[in-house]
């Protein structure tokens, strides 16, 4: 009996340790705070990025109307949440939801009379080439856009309906962010394309019961202003300004397009774009991973007047080429920052690597009809950001990633499904999405 006691006590101790480890598994997981979502400047970049992507689609397909929706889910966020039942805080699994929708109109306000009108070809609604034609040179087009991005965490609620089955519902959790663009577009074909608009950045706190009282009142919302000018679809300038300062600008040159103005381009030459972007990225904000210039005397509660700003300069080159039904594209982006930046955790100077990003993607169109596509895309990338290890349990500040996408296009409807893991375009929008799988679906209707 004494020998039994001798073994039982260590056994019980080991069992308790094991049970404690198993049962506290969810609490031991990394707990995420959705802090970079508070960065309205970064969110403004994201919503503009999609705005410009939609307009690229509108121009390249000669559309008059585009309505688009995009739903994106990031799983496995564990967020410290207050439990009103226990009166304590615990790590709760949540899902980050990001949704985007857009409605855009473009129509000619002046079209010069052409000497040889092409009206002989009958219209075939399954063949876009018979009813979507390039805009006539010297015509003037006017466009309007309303688009918006919503970000926020939601918590899934399990509902047991007895013999009627089980279902789930979802609650809003923590701050919800609504960023909207209202913009006007003017085009003098093919010489000048202008976009000008306002970005409305709104943050709404959900109610304690998981619901949200939404109210879009432009007079109470933070605003940013953006403009874009493109000459001959070759030289493009894009900028974003806050109330008191220019936050970012981006200049790019499509070399192939530029050469084609004066000479005939050999068919083997890819589309080559080079660009330069200036972005006031580090601002001593609580969500920034670094302090600007020095850590001395700084804290996350310091006043705005004491905050310093550092600008990130990036230089990029993109190449793309189609070989029949096969598409290839690749890009590299180099970087430097104009001031010393200091890691908030170690207070050591952060040396940014020269290469911030490279990516490559390939696609194959399984259909070979004008206006109809069924493209399978695969892409890989390497991305660096000093916020990576600050906002996650990722051990360093660079990562490799991939995406796979199926993209279906018909003359009036497009559908797309994408899965990704550490894809740079997702991490650039939200660094906390690192080491998480992302599922995304989108659809559009266009005329």
């Amino acid at each position: 009996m004494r020998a039994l006691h001798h073994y039982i006590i260590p056994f019980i101790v080991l069992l308790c340790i094991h049970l404690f480890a198993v049962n506290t598994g969810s609490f031991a997981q990394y707990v995420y705070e959705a802090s970079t979502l508070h960065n309205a400047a970064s969110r403004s970049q994201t919503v503009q990025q999609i705005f410009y992507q939609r307009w690229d689609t509108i121009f390249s397909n000669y559309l008059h109307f585009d309505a688009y929706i995009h739903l994106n889910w990031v799983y496995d966020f564990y967020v410290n949440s207050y439990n009103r039942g226990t009166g304590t805080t615990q790590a709760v699994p949540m899902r980050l939801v990001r949704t985007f929708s857009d409605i855009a109109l473009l129509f000619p306000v002046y079209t010069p009379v052409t000497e040889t009108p092409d009206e002989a070809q009958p219209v075939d609604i399954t063949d876009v080439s018979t009813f979507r034609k390039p805009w006539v040179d010297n015509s003037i087009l006017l466009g309007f856009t309303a688009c918006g991005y919503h970000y926020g965490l939601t918590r899934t609620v399990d509902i047991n309906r007895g013999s009627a089955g089980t279902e789930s519902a979802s609650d809003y959790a923590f701050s919800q962010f609504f960023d909207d663009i209202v913009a006007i577009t003017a085009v003098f074909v093919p010489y000048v394309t202008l976009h000008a608009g306002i970005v409305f950045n709104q943050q709404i706190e959900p109610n304690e019961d998981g619901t949200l009282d939404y109210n879009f009142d432009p007079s109470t919302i933070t605003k940013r202003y953006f403009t874009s000018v493109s000459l001959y679809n070759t030289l493009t300038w894009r900028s974003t300004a806050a109330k008191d300062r220019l936050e970012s600008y981006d200049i790019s040159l499509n070399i192939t397009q530029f050469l084609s103005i004066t000479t005939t381009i050999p068919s083997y030459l890819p589309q080559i774009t080079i660009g330069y972007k200036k972005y006031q990225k580090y601002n001593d904000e609580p969500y920034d991973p670094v302090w600007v210039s020095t850590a001395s005397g700084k804290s996350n509660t310091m006043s705005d007047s004491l905050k310093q700003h550092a600008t990130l300069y990036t230089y990029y080159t993109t190449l793309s080429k189609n070989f029949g039904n096969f598409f290839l594209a690749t890009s590299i982006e180099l970087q430097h920052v104009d001031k010393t930046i200091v890691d908030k955790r170690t207070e050591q100077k952060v040396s940014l690597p020269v290469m911030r990003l490279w990516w490559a993607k390939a696609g194959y169109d399984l259909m070979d009809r004008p206006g109809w596509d069924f493209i399978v895309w695969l892409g890989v990338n390497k991305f660096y950001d000093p916020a990576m290890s600050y906002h996650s349990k990722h051990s360093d500040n660079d990562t490799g990633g991939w995406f796979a996408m199926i993209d279906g296009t018909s003359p009036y409807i497009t559908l797309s499904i994408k899965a990704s893991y550490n894809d740079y375009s997702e991490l650039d929008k939200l660094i906390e999405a690192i080491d998480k799988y992302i599922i995304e679906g989108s659809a559009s209707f266009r005329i």
Partner: protein
Amino acid sequence: MPNKFIQILLLWAIVTANVACSYVADYIEGEITNRARFSISAHYEAGTGVIVEWDANPGNDSFAGYEIYMTKEANNEFAEYIVVGACYDISTSPYFQIDANLDNPSTSRFVHQTGNLPQSGIYFYRVGVIEWDERDYNNDGEDEKKPSSPDESLYELYTNIADISGSAMVEIP
């Protein structure tokens, strides 16, 4: 052309002035994931039980009833919810009660009677608006929005939560 231009501009202005696009997309996502859309109130009354009140205004076309849910565990806001009130006998839980009024869309109050309440503690309640699936109930080759003679077995098989409330906290002494 000017008239068409003005019409399009007005349409665009009306759409963008009333509902921002960020909310439209979020609303659609909320429909997919059954987002909590309306608030309710709930309080304990000694000798009566827990009184749950709401204002949901469901449509009549496919309305099947209201269901009342309560957290399964005491003192845990994030626990699973179980049904404690419905117009049919769909649960064997000791906390469950049938309330025939819950099949009426104008009902806005439910009393979880003292005899059906769990042990003391903090609990959370929700209200679900239940709707019929659109299907061929009459076997006439055409889909109907609801059965002409609803019963418990049809309710168990062909209903789903169309809308759900946020949570309301109640302390049961």
